[in-house]
């Protein structure tokens, strides 16, 4: 089990935060382009999922899995999007992502008046709290 990387996007599609722990392969494009590609993919996937759903859905997109990794997606009603890429064997981590939102993002970004919610997050405190949070998760590998 392992956690590869995290993206946090705001509603407008700005990547507020990116961090990687165990990423082994580069995308071969600039980071800025990668963010755009990621956001565009999520945007399309969300609309794809909601249009093709045969029943009314409350949650919409929550994750997708390939043979190599799993992308976990969490979106708040305010449009904040958290994307955590993990090992494909990780189960449903919706609650974990909500905790990450409420215990780390809200506490150290929203409640920090110096953090602009439209700009990439520069707060060192947020950075270290997030790192701490992720490293305490059961599916973060012990090395």
């Amino acid at each position, binding site marked *: 089990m392992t956690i590869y990387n995290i993206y946090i996007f705001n509603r407008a599609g700005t990547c507020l935060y990116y961090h990687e722990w165990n990423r082994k392969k580069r995308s071969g494009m600039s980071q800025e382009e990668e963010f755009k590609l990621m956001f*565009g993919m999520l945007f399309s996937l969300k609309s794809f999922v909601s249009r093709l759903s045969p029943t009314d859905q409350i949650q919409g997109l929550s994750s997708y899995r390939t043979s190599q990794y799993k992308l976990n997606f969490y979106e708040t009603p305010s449009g904040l999007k958290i994307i955590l890429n993990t090992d494909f064997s990780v189960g449903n981590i919706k609650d974990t992502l909500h905790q990450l939102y409420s215990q780390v993002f809200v506490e150290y970004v*929203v409640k920090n008046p110096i953090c602009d919610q439209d700009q990439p997050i520069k707060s060192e405190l947020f950075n270290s709290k997030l790192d701490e949070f992720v490293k305490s998760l059961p599916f973060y590998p012990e090395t």
Partner: protein
Amino acid sequence: MSRQVARGVDTKKISSELFALTYGSIVAQLVNDYEEDDEINKQLDKMGYNIGIRIIEDFLARSGIGRCTDFRETADIISKVAFKMFLGITPVVTNWSSTGDEFSLLIENNPLTEFVELPDNHSQLNYSNIICGAMRGALEMVQLDVSVWFVQDQLKGDNITEIRLKFNKRLEDALPPGED
């Protein structure tokens, strides 16, 4: 670690008097800074808006509430969950318009105005206007464009404080413009 300890104590409850007095001094300062009541109202609304766009995140994180399906549900959540959480009161939701896009919140004991008496020369001042701004800002972040204003105010001699909300439109998510 002291931060964490302090956080443990704050368990969503502080003295409402401290809050009311702090708010009172903000209004008093604005009254000093600006001459027109309208301008003070505008400043309070703006401050409220800036609070609202942040407070919504705290609200969503704490309540775990998802997206509302209609405006009636929104009204219920505002009065029963949000007002309860942040001000410790539960306003009555009433006076629905026939189309279901307007309603009023009736507040009997506004915690902000506990120690306040409006002088005669400030008859246009909406003392608690910050609440309107906060609701507008918070709702905007969940894609609801809403107008909020005071209809009645106990400070102005009315029997009850009434805040009216009107749903204007849903704000749609737009894909940011790409380069190619």
